[in-house]
């Protein structure tokens, strides 16, 4: 009994520790005060107005969308192709390729940032949209590879063999059978890639110029230099977007699960 009670208390405290910080920040997005503390004097939408009208924030949101879309497209195309290539179990150096494709997730962002800055400066891509998109793609691509590989692993090879035996040439098998079955994996990989780009700060710090300031980068310097409730409004936006993205991924996964 005592054990069960202490388990319950521990679980509740741990859940609070995990969740409360995320919830605590949300109401502050609607404060009318200029300082980011409770209690809030009254409710107001002024910080959302600020977010969408103040030049720095608006610019940052637009930049995030541009860079996020670019990185998502690039990462999804490259990552999906690579996952399809990795599917061949008989391929030599398969493990090597796989490790290499996942390594950007492991290498500390600051280390990659230093290298990226040196290299992009050398090839003239520093302080350009292309440079930031390339940098974000590098860290986003592992998520696509993992997600698509997972979806492909779930496809019963016999379904493709059946299609072949029914007279479909390889390209048709891919187009009519493999790709539709892997599509939920591709889509959730794309969502994860976008989320990664949206949240990326460190690489952006190293390779982006003032014109490519992203929302995350803007939040970072805002917390550092002049903290204001605009951050809470931006966080509110972030949480809403990621929750929607999360639902999307869960939806794709359940489609995937239902097909099996």
């Amino acid at each position, binding site marked *: 009994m005592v054990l069960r009670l202490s*388990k319950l208390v*521990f*679980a509740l405290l*741990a*859940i609070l*520790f995990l*969740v409360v910080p*995320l919830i605590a*920040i949300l109401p502050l997005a609607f404060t009318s005060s200029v300082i*980011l*503390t*409770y209690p809030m004097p009254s409710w107001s939408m002024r910080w959302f107005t600020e977010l969408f009208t103040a030049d720095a924030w608006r610019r940052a949101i637009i930049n995030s969308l541009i860079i996020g879309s670019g990185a998502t497209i690039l990462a999804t195309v490259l990552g999906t*192709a*690579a996952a*399809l*290539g*990795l*599917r*061949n179990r*008989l*391929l030599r150096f398969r493990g090597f*390729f796989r490790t*290499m*494709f996942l390594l*950007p997730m*492991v*290498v*500390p*962002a*600051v*280390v*990659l940032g*230093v*290298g*990226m800055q*040196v*290299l*992009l400066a*050398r090839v003239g891509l520093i302080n350009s949209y292309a440079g930031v998109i*390339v940098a974000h*793609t*590098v860290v986003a691509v592992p998520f696509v*590879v993992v997600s698509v590989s997972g979806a492909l692993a779930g496809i019963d090879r016999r379904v493709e063999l059946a299609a072949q035996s029914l007279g479909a040439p390889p390209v048709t098998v891919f187009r009519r059978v493999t790709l539709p079955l892997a599509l939920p994996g591709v889509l959730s990989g794309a969502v994860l890639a976008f*989320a990664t780009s*949206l*949240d990326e700060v*460190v690489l952006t*710090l*190293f390779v982006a110029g003032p014109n490519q300031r992203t929302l995350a980068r803007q939040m*970072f310097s805002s*917390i*550092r230099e002049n903290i204001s409730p605009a*951050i*809470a409004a931006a*966080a509110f936006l972030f*949480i809403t977007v*990621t*929750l929607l*993205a*999360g639902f999307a991924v869960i939806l794709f996964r359940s489609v995937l699960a239902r097909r099996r």
Partner: protein
Amino acid sequence: MSGSPTRTGRSLLLLAPLFAFLVAFFVWPLFSMVSQSVSDTAVLRLLPHSADVLAAWDRLSPPSPAMQAALMEDLRAVDDAQALGDMVRRLNSAQSGFRTLMSKTTTALADTDDPPADLVSIDKRWQKPEFWLAIANALSPLTDRNLLAAVDLGRDAQGAIEHLPPDESVNRVILVRTFWISALVTLACICIGYPYAMIAASLGGWKRDLMLAAVLLPLWTSLLVRTAAWFILLQEQGLINDLLQWLRLTDGPVPLIFNRTGVIIAMTHVLLPFMVLPIYSTLITIPGNLMPAAASLGAHPFRAFLRVLLPLSLRGVASGSLLVFISAIGYYITPALIGGPGDQMISSIIAFYAIGSANWGMAGALGVVLLVATLLLYSVYARLSAEEPGRS
């Protein structure tokens, strides 16, 4: 299925774009960083003639007229003030007094009305072999100076490795601090994560789903948002201090932000999911009848835990700890925003050298240290997770 050549070819064709992309924008940047840390052309770039002449010098005798003439020719040809500044800084760090000597020399050389005959006539110090030795040593295009400095080592005049004086030994402090903070965060994650995973694995239905959702939610949320959230909670007028004062646990606000406590709390929150998930996934693969079996064989629940559940879930704990530790040592954002000056970790110092003071050599060298540590730990992790569970 056969590994037919066409199939292999098709697979390679599909892999090639990403492979090429990563070679160009992942491997090459890392390689550039490493080469940046060992390259040292600040002196060689400006003194090509001196390099030729100094190669024949015995490194002991006083400078020959040819050496002086070559150096004078090189210095006259310099038209890039910033490059000159880099070189002087480089030489001054090897031999103090170079800064004044150089400025005196360049001024004298710039005087075209009355050109000096040789360097010794400008300043007597040019007679001393030490200054020439410093130049000779700095001419090599490769150096281990940055790498050694990254761990607070240097070379003395004879080229032997020595410890840097304490006032220059900041990196080792930061390395130790990085590992210490990471270890504390890992420990905190184990202490919270293991019981959490154990409770979640013992439950079923919506309770288990709730506990897993509580872990996944932060993982899904932006790192920046989570850090901002902790900023709000931990600040002096933040919710935690309000709560503590309302509970009468403290009279004034407790400093929680811009110090070690805040960094560890926020990092534990951020990294906890990486501990819970691997432990949880090993716990649920443990057959449910082992603990009842241990009980039926006479084991008290605590002994059954120690002898059965803990050894079987140790792999999950090891994976989780490595994952948390690897992530923690590379952390930048959270210490940068929540920590004080005394809590900055190696990433912050790298960023400082790279962005703040444009010292690419040092940034690269510290980056190499961090990269090597990360890759070593990751290889252990990869081996651990590749091993089939349940086999000895």
